[in-house]
């Protein structure tokens, strides 16, 4: 259905005829809650909504009260919308005040169902006063479960701000690293002045601002020609000065500038993260995804950081202050000046400082009625007040706006005289008819980033706010962040800290850069009246009886709720915050925290700094998971490691198992084979003929140096003194605590040259471990380690036919049992490729491990298959490998051990040489009294009484199956398989005192109700004499 654009244009009843930084020639059509609306390029979603007279943008979280737009920037608590043109691009939690309007954008409120205007939740909300008290969630969770279920439906519907798509995100995100001399956060007057000063030093400068254009507060303040409160910088209109500054910065090749980018985290050593919204057009409008980066996460390391993050205006807390139409004073100005949007027709301003008068001037300039400015100060005098009176604006001093009136929006303001301390109402109230209320309680410096590295903000009485505390980082702050709100002061601050930020290099540069000139301000605002520290406005009734006075809009925290929690005994601000969920919304309480603390202070009779401080943590604003993940998604989420023969395994139809980052063939199903059928086939083929395993993932470390042998003797538990070149030995590696850490076979290539193998998963750790000891304890040992895991392809052939098969492919290695015995190692050629061949076995059968340079791995693998058919050569994967080794009682470190198992617990005392001259690593540890206890868990075989039942791995053992719960657990199963070759199930496990208890029974009560019975036995189930391997 096409819609007449003229109709949509005319619908913008709150758009001013001229002015604003919008392009009326570029209309954008968007939808809100199913309604088609029009705005212009340059609008934010919020300004476009206001232009169309949309006052209600959502329902509140607990009470389902209608809520409207309050602010014009990042601090907005209410206008949090769901945006997305398609299911897969649904984005929750977007602040309409920060989101540029996009043609075709599809938006809707998140908290109102079925719609924000008429909400079922309001039924619930009307019960809210009694039902949803402070600590509601904590108290609810303490109710009986049956009560909880009745709440759950409501809470699930209400909780959270929108929903994420469950489909894969089609857009592209990435990360970018920056290394700069000076990072300037904030491109308002302070940040621009700082960037200009810093850029003159020739240093690398990065300037970041969250808005779509530079200027900060100048985007809505200080226009000398048109407004009563006029300012000029260096004889230019403020925005002309901004444009000029931006031009100078952009012309400097050492300066980079990011807009629409929020610095979200300030981490240690001046590492900051910034989230850039580059192009949300496709995602939010529903058009097809185009190539390009939607959002980018910048990772910035800066020699020094300039924080010019400004301040957020605090709305005042009064009764019904959440009615749509209640806004901050600066937001009213910003909508009028920047977007040419007038939020209503009749305005009442309440301000505790001169700055709030701007809203009245702007409103009047736009040709609408200013009903009154309510000023709580008694007899204040300043340029702003004089100008207001001269302009015919009614100014009521010593008064307060105590209550807003209206149902779905403001229709009136209740005003009353108050005492000098603004603690109580001194006279009768009067009702002023109006549709918009603008308030200013002062400005809270945006200290968020300054807190992230642990610095606590400090209260500043002059600023009436928290300012950044001391830090060890090279960090500079200025402007409104320090409570310096005068434009001239901001520019002076910025120039000074911009120069200081460069001066970390040398004194010479400091002198050079301080010469940078401070921009000069001309202002008609010559005298200022001191601002008043007002947070919560008094009401004729106590706050528990008055209409709700909201402090934190996102979590519906009220002044009465905070006061009640102090009556319930909460005194620490940290407890009060958590109990009320004050500041726990996605806005982190940017508008509500200080007001909340002030109410706590009032209730406890303390000063604000006595109550405490408020600390913010990363992130400053929510960041999308897409930006966090960047390009690290799908196949790039985690690196995958492939062996040289990987493609062959894929072609052979292997199922793969993840072992660390390695992809290892798990088993090779043929046809419709089940996993257990495949494993039985692979196992029998290996035991009866010959099987082939890709063992390339085994860790391999090349060890060289005259002290290599001595070093091995120190890090392994067994003896290495007599291992001759051409021989291999199995070794156990322990930690200093005596617990098994890794195992593997090491070959002696020469007296000063060894080839160590480690477990697949332990390779990196073992190399670090060896380096640790060599570098920090025994630097006198002359030895080098080189990881060669990826340099060698390792092919293991196992089974009675393995010798005959290998014999076909080598003519320079004598494979006879006499010439090449068990645990021997030979060099020669296999399939014409230079190879190291180890006669070692992880199956108990005759077996060879062929190592060839990785890029020849596939050649040798293929050659084995070329002549393998007549020997029944069968590929097997890790699962069959596990069964084969378990039949022989061979352990897998990390499966049969868990860091609490000594070699003696494994009955591997044979691998410990206690008489070595050097007290090897782990020796003293395994002799500690606890390690020699008799009732330690020890590795034994387990034969299930039902040979067809495989006991689940991890099953807990008990001695007495009739013992009532809680039962005494005596160990658990570590490895358990069905052995097709033995025709029965086999298992290993660690059982208390197991080595002495072979023949005894243990029981495994399972979660499914069965109890299995098993007999402790020797873990070698097959060929205990070892005859099969020594042929």
């Amino acid at each position: 259905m096409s819609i007449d654009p003229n109709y949509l244009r005319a619908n913008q009843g709150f758009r001013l005829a001229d002015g604003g930084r919008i392009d009326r020639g570029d209309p954008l059509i968007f939808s809100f809650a199913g309604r088609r609306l029009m705005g212009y390029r340059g609008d934010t979603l919020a300004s476009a909504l206001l232009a169309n007279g949309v006052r209600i943008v959502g329902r509140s979280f607990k009470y389902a009260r209608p809520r409207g737009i309050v602010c014009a920037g990042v601090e907005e608590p209410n206008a949090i919308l769901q945006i997305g043109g398609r299911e897969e691009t649904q984005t929750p939690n977007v602040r309409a005040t920060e989101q540029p309007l996009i043609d075709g954008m599809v938006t809707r409120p998140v908290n109102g169902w079925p719609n924000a205007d008429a909400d079922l939740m309001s039924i619930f909300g009307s019960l809210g006063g009694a039902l949803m008290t402070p600590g509601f969630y904590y108290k609810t969770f303490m109710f009986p479960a049956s009560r909880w279920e009745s709440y759950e439906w409501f809470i699930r519907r209400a909780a959270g701000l929108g929903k994420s798509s469950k489909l894969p995100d089609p857009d592209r995100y990435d990360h970018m690293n920056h290394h700069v001399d000076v990072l300037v956060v904030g491109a308002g007057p302070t940040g621009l002045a700082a960037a200009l000063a810093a850029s003159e030093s020739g240093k690398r400068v990065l300037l970041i601002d969250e808005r779509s254009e530079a200027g900060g507060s100048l985007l809505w303040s200080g226009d000398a020609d048109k407004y009563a409160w006029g300012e000029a910088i260096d004889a230019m209109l403020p925005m002309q000065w901004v444009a000029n500054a931006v031009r100078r910065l952009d012309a400097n090749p050492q300066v980079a500038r990011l807009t629409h980018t929020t610095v979200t985290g300030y981490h240690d050593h001046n590492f900051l993260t910034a989230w850039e919204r580059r192009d949300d057009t496709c995602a939010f409008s529903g058009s097809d995804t185009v190539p390009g980066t939607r959002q980018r996460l910048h990772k910035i390391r800066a020699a020094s950081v300039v924080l010019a993050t400004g301040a957020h205006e605090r709305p005042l807390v009064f009764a019904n202050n959440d009615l749509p139409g209640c806004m901050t004073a600066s937001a009213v100005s910003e909508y009028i000046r920047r977007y040419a949007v007038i939020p209503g027709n009749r305005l009442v301003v309440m301000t505790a400082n001169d700055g709030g008068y701007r809203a009245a001037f702007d409103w009047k300039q736009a040709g609408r009625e200013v009903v009154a400015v309510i000023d709580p100060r008694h007899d204040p005098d300043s340029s702003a007040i004089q100008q207001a009176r001269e302009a015919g604006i009614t100014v009521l001093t010593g008064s307060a706006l105590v209550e807003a009136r209206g149902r779905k929006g403001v229709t009136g303001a209740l005003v009353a005289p108050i005492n000098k301390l603004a603690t109580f109402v001194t006279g009768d109230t009067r009702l002023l008819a109006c549709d918009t209320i603008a308030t200013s309680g002062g400005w809270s410096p945006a200290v968020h980033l300054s807190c992230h590295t642990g610095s606590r903000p400090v209260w500043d009485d002059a600023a009436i706010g928290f300012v950044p505390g001391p830090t060890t980082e090279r960090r500079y702050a200025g402007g409104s962040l320090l409570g310096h709100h005068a434009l001239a002061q901001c520019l002076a601050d910025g120039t000074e800290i911009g120069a200081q930020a460069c001066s970390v290099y040398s004194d010479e540069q400091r002198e050079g850069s301080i010469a940078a000139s401070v921009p000069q301000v001309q202002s008609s605002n010559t005298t200022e009246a001191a601002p008043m520290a007002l947070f919560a406005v008094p009401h004729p009734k106590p706050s528990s009886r008055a209409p709700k006075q909201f402090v934190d809009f996102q979590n519906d925290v009220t002044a009465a709720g905070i006061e009640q929690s102090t009556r319930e005994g909460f005194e620490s601000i940290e407890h009060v915050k958590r109990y009320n969920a004050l500041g726990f919304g996605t806005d982190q309480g940017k508008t509500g925290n200080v007001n909340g603390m002030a109410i706590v202070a009032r209730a406890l009779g303390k000063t604000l700094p006595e109550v405490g401080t408020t600390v913010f943590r990363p992130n400053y604003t929510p960041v999308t998971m897409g930006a966090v993940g960047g390009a690290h998604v799908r196949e790039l989420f985690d690196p995958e490691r492939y062996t040289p023969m990987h493609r062959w395994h894929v072609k052979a139809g292997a199922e793969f198992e993840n072992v660390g980052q390695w992809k290892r063939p798990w088993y090779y199903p043929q046809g419709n084979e089940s996993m257990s059928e495949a494993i039985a086939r692979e196992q029998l083929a290996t035991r009866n003929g010959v099987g082939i395993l890709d063992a390339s993932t085994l860790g391999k470390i090349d060890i060289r140096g005259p002290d290599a042998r001595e070093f091995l003797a120190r890090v392994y538990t067994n003896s290495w003194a007599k291992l001759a070149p051409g021989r291999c030995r199995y070794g156990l590696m322990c930690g200093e605590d005596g617990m098994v850490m890794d195992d593997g076979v090491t070959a002696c290539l020469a007296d000063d040259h060894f080839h160590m193998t480690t477990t697949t998963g332990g390779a990196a750790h073992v190399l670090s471990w060896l380096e640790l000891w060599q570098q920090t304890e025994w630097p006198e040992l002359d030895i080098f380690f080189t990881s060669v895991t990826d340099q060698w392809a390792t092919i293991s052939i196992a089974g009675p036919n393995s010798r005959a098969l290998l014999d076909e492919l080598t003519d320079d290695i004598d494979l006879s049992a006499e010439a090449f015995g068990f645990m021997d190692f030979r060099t020669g050629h296999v399939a014409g490729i230079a190879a190291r061949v180890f006669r070692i076995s992880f199956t108990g059968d005759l077996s060879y491990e062929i190592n060839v340079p990785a890029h020849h791995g596939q050649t040798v693998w293929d050659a084995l298959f070329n002549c393998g058919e007549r020997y029944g050569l069968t590929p097997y994967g890790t699962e069959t490998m596990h069964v084969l080794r378990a039949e022989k009682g061979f352990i897998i470190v990390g499966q049969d051990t868990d860091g609490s198992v000594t070699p003696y617990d494994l009955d591997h005392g044979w691998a410990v040489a206690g008489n070595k001259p050097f007290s090897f690593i782990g020796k003293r540890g395994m002799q500690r009294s606890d390690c020699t206890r008799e009732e330690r868990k020890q590795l034994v075989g387990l034969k299930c009484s039902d040979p067809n039942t495989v006991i689940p791995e991890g099953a807990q053992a008990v001695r007495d199956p009739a013992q009532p719960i809680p039962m005494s657990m005596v160990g658990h199963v570590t490895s358990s398989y069905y052995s097709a070759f033995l025709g029965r199930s086999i298992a290993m496990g660690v059982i208390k005192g197991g080595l002495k208890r072979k023949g005894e029974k243990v029981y495994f009560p399972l979660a499914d109700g069965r109890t299995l019975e098993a007999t402790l036995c020797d873990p070698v189930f097959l060929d205990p004499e070892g005859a099969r391997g020594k042929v």
Partner: protein
Amino acid sequence: MFLIHCPYCGEDREEEEFHAAGEAHIARPLDPDACSDEEWGNYLYFRRNPRGLHRELWVHVAGCGKYFNIARDTASYQIHGSYRIGERFTWSDAEDSAAP
């Protein structure tokens, strides 16, 4: 994210290139077999874990592979120096009285 100076590479590098390896200067007893269980337990498990000045062992695992020490404030996270194995690092006398 720390910025760590590797005394072997001579460069400030990102923390992700390094691994922490615990408290520095924990010497292995020269004759472990002569240690009591308690002495051995102290060597194995007991660390100072101070709030404040601390010497730590790190390894430039994604760089030169070398172990080295840093002197770091565990409260402010400031790194006061990086130095090679076998070297010593001292803070000013006043500061160092807090360290062992």
